[in-house]
């Protein structure tokens, strides 16, 4: 733990768009610098296992999907922890259900981070494939912009690096992690 603020990328990299929160986390880790420091964490498929993080940090931002059939693909929603606890979040994927219940449980703890969830409506969370659908790709940059905007609200200065790792390069790392070649999530 190096910072007071954590960005948790959350989701499942193997079910097409369900991994978009993970990719956002990796993209923001590789392509930007932060002052003061920001911890970017691969939350993966964890739900209740993320509880210690909410107890450790002052502010937690979770990037994930929101499988809301009533909204257009790529719709980005920013919800506070209180709004999520009040069941205003969408709970369709296993991960979405667990994250919300994890927040409900942690709200009872002595300390629970001020939490914000930034979700994007996916198109396909069924296909077993490490990729992002063309429809969701159209909204990728805006998704990143909304997360950066939220980090800025937390008092963090976000500066983009000169060399940018593209979304496709991020996807390649998730699709082909390698211990030998030091590639991973």
């Amino acid at each position, binding site marked *: 733990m190096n910072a007071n603020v954590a960005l948790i990328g959350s989701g499942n990299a193997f079910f097409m768009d369900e991994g978009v929160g993970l990719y956002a986390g990796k993209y923001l880790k590789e392509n930007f610098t932060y002052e003061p420091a920001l911890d970017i964490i691969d939350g993966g498929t964890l739900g*209740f*296992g993320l*509880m210690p993080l909410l107890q450790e940090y002052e502010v937690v931002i979770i990037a994930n999907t929101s499988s809301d059939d009533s909204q257009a693909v790529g719709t980005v929603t920013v919800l506070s922890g209180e709004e999520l606890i009040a069941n205003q979040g969408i709970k369709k994927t*296993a991960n979405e*259900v*667990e994250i919300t219940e994890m927040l409900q*449980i942690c709200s*009872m703890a002595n300390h629970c981070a001020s939490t914000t969830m930034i979700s994007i409506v996916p198109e396909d969370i069924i296909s077993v494939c490490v990729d992002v659908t063309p429809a969701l790709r159209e909204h990728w940059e805006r998704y990143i912009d909304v997360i950066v905007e939220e980090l800025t609200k937390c008092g963090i200065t976000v500066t983009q690096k000169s060399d940018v790792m593209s979304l496709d390069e991020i996807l390649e790392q998730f699709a*082909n992690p390698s211990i030998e070649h030091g590639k991973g999530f």
Partner: protein
Amino acid sequence: MSKHIVVDPITRIEGHLRIEAVIDENNTIVDAYSASTMFRGIETILQGRDPRDCGLLAMRICGVCTGTHYQRSIEAVEDAFNITIPKNARIVRNLIQGALYMHDHVVHFYHLHALDFVDVVSALSADPAKTAAEARKWASVAGESPFIDGESEFKAIQDRVAKFVKQGRLGIFGNGYWGNPHYKLTPEQNLIGVAHYLQALDIQRDMAKMQAIFGGKNPHPQSIVVGGVTCVQDIQNPARIALFKSLLLEGTKFIKQAYLPDVYMAGTMYAGEATDSKATFSELVGGKGVGGTGGGLLNFMSYGDFRLDDTGFYKSALLFPKGVVMGGDISKVLPLDEEKIAEDVTHAWYKGDKPLHPYEGQTIPEYTGLDKRADGIAYLKTKEKYSWIKSPIYNDARVEVGPLARMVIGVAAKDERITKYVTNFLKRGNLPVTVLFSTVGRTAARAIETELMADVMLEWIDELAKNVLTGDKSTWTEFDFDEVSVSAKGRGMAEAPRGALGHWVSIADGKVVNYQAIVPSTWNAAPRDYKNRMGAYEASLIGTKVANPEQPLEIIRTIHSFDPCIACAVHVVDTKGKELAVYKVDSSCSI
């Protein structure tokens, strides 16, 4: 008229699980179906990979024991390459997994399961002074002083919960069936449960830190590699070992002074259900009723786990013995024959015409859909395929896996350590051994295992420190990948907190050609098999009396006792499809 209860998704679990139960006119469950409505299919993504990297992908199978899948995958490859890891690596792996067991079991009992026994609203009317006395009573049963015994502390917690309620900040407490007659604890006992629920939030945070000390990256530890571990600096750093030990001792204190006493309390107050032999699956299928509500199959299997010496993965002495116990007969344990494991897909949404051993296993989806009814509920086609979970079979029988299986098999195998902990628990609680064969027994077995694990980990951390002091700094066994990966197959068969976990890998020319995993919840949550025999969840619900069909508390309590790793809203409908009540609806399950 019988009624049809659909619980979908079951909350406070990991993943998607749906239960359909049929209850008779006396509100007793006479039939039950368990289904996962989410396709995993991760095995297909592992084909063609470098086997050394499979762990990185396999860990994403699960939302809880990611580190266990990671390790099992690596052990399967080590078995294929005939690699025995060094002593330091063995102990470190035991410590990482042991810390996961402690964390997982505590979070399960308090945050995912306790509210099936504890009525939060009732706790608000408790007398704090009487609560303190009650806490002392149950701690003394465990031979301990209570984790909290001050009237003022209980009053402060009660006020805190009352404040939550007043502010409308109910959080997870907003979802219970409060006031249901099948809640059996007194207001004071409920306040103890709520107090420990809140304190367990802090304790589990520290238990998670234990996993990170030797696991490197957290979450998703990556310090385990084919051949050993990479945390060389951590095992040579006395401060890291001292920190691990300090966190372990704090966690152990909570387990002995709160967790065990709470399970004695629940075990005693719910003993009626736990020993009701007329509410057992075995009684209703024509056998002799053994145990009580929620007992289920009474067939248990364990792959064994936690290596205690360095003679090799499948030769080593084990903390948890491997074996099989059939029909609740703890007088004998049958040896585990790996060749007798097969997966059947008769009632699962996959193609296949016969049960296959995991080495030959296939994962070819064949979704045939749900029944569609005019009332908006999609029912399972229970005569056909109805789940994304395959049906694992051992020696042509259905079996249960998990902490209860490990404790039962340990006793049947006359394992000295396990027998001591189980006997001590039953003796102190003045409970019969058959109480284990029930929902409450399954929960108690997990608590017994947690205490055992905490105690043995203290031995292991000392063993690690001592070994490093002798100058042994080896953490990795060298191997020639090109040589060993030409043609090989291996299995990583051991235990996860929820039960037997196996990964099977076939390798040719340095690449994975086939990969299959059978996870604990596959064994337990599986649908019927080719002989129409029930899986463990399904069998465990048979005979259960439901106090109020509109509040399926008893179904959720029993399913939670398995610690499912597969999430739900509740529809209660009659057999003609009329919906009686809907509590929460997951859109993925609607049509």
